[in-house]
């Protein structure tokens, strides 16, 4: 493994010495996991603090049994979700990830 010139940050190497990650890339991160149940009630989560690291917070509906997933929007650092057309008796979970 040689010493490489890099602009900033860290470089990670595989076991064979090849570069695994360089200074331009980053890693997917979980910001929060929220169980929003049957999403019969609209809700929101403030992600301003999460985004202070230069990353962008987005929502993933990590599981849903309804045919229609929650309607999700984002405005001024707050992520909102709304109930869906056919969500009665279905469970949903959402996850805030940092991209």
């Amino acid at each position: 493994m040689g010493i490489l010139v890099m602009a900033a940050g860290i470089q990670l190497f595989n076991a064979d010495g090849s570069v695994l990650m360089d200074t331009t890339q980053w890693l997917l991160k979980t910001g929060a996991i929220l169980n929003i149940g049957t999403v019969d009630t609209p809700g929101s989560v403030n992600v301003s603090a999460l985004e202070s690291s230069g990353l962008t917070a987005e929502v993933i509906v990590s599981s849903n049994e309804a045919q229609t997933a929650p309607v999700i929007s984002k405005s001024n650092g707050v992520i909102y979700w709304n109930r869906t057309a056919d969500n009665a008796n279905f469970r949903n979970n959402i996850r805030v990830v940092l991209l």
Partner: protein
Amino acid sequence: MGIGFEVYNEQGKLQISSDLMQYYLHSKGTGKLSRQNNNDGVIDVRPPGNKRPTYVYGGGIFDPSGAPYTGPTGTDTGFIALRCTEPLIGGGALTLSSNSPDCDWYRFEPFSDLDPSNSRFGLQLFNSAGKVTFDLGAKPLIISAVQRVNNLSAGTNYTLGLPGGRKYAFIMNKASLRVTKPFSASTGGGTQLPDLNATSSTINITSNGDVRIADSGYETDYAGSNSFDGLYTIIDVTGY
């Protein structure tokens, strides 16, 4: 952060953090991204030997006969990245389209699932709760680019230039969906699957290891939901 370990990349983005959960390569394979039911796409990523006949598409969970499946639903499920044949990925550029070709799939799960004693070399990070958040003993989910799409509708393509000499896959998940118009319950009823998330090129995985993917083109079936905004995450899988 008060204590711990952080690295920022040259764009000022937080690259690694001991406080935040990151993801590692759990398994990989190849499969046919097949079309089922109103252009939804399905790919099977279950490990060999798992015979449970469940597939996921269109917002619900179904077995191959189309009957609903009512298995448990997880909370912290992983991600699937795909590398499909043309024209989804070609050369150093990525093109998002509505085709449904053969795909290599890469399943990623949170590092907290790993036994830290199995780590072989390199850097290992823990959060304040003692959970492993990063470990070079496993291959991490590395993001090379995020492509934002706007007003995407059937036939719309986005092309993104990427550095050469690397191997890329992509995550198209429901997380990225920004619904711009509300779903109308009066449309797409009956046996159709009126899933707003199915109106984009989307993918997710349940705690059971089932995956669902829906590709673009579906949105034209439903008035009031004929376009969307979203994000596509480009994953570096070189050497994976």
